[in-house]
């Protein structure tokens, strides 16, 4: 079954809610957010620092094939409750956007399925709308292109193995 990512964007609210159901037990879904090596794989970024605890902080960095840093983000972790919740801030460095606040809630649906609800709160409505309209604001764009390259390669590799 295809599980689609849903966006919930309400009038006058300076947040975006992203909901996704996974064919994964909640523990595995959470692990994808907990383990730096796994994060690096699916986010397509280098994890320079990730302290999974209250008062901890994180720092991600993405470089282009020439080694130039194209994307850098950091934040603080406010809550880290295994298999349940992560509250953190997110700041894209060298970008004209203020820090955003993220609430990630992990829910068990069945033994093998789970749901992630991610609420991103922006400083202003204008900023939220700007982010929505420019999802590929440069930096993210390049990181995302790179991510797609990696995915394409991995998919191919996986396919070969199965054959």
């Amino acid at each position, binding site marked *: 079954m295809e599980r689609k990512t849903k966006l919930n*964007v309400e*009038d006058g609210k300076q947040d975006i809610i992203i909901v996704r159901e996974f064919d994964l037990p909640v523990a595995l879904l959470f692990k994808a957010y907990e383990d730096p090596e796994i994060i690096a794989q699916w986010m397509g970024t280098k994890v320079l620092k990730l302290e999974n605890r209250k008062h901890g902080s994180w720092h991600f960095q993405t470089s282009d094939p020439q080694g130039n840093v194209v994307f850098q983000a950091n934040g603080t972790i406010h809550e880290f409750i295994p298999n349940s919740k992560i509250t953190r801030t997110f700041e894209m460095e060298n970008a004209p956007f203020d820090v955003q606040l993220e609430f990630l809630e992990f829910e068990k649906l069945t033994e093998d399925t789970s749901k992630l609800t991610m609420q991103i709160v922006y400083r202003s409505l204008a900023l939220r709308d700007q982010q929505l309209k420019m999802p590929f604001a440069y930096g993210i764009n390049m990181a995302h292109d790179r991510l797609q390259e990696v995915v394409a390669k991995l998919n191919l590799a996986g396919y070969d193995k199965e054959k």
Partner: protein
Amino acid sequence: MELRRDVFQAIADPTRRAIIALVASQALTPTSIAENFDSSRQTISKHIQILTECELLKQEQQGREIYYHFNPKKMKEIADFIEPFRQMWDERFNKLESIMKKYKSKS
């Protein structure tokens, strides 16, 4: 500077989305649109006005009545600009899912 009302704001409201859904099936007068809602006639008029300003609805005079039509071209525009944001997350999550499925079968 006052932010100009945009299509994005227009469809973010649930009542306005309901109005679009109604008008999408057939052209309606403001009165017949308002009959479908508990809100006051003025509230609904305001919503219709916003939708018209954003070109999601088009007015057509038929005798003494004004009918509102849905403008699918404008709706397509909206879908187009929110879609990349949704897709970005969808692709990330697909990736996450496939990695964790492999992880599961390994362990």
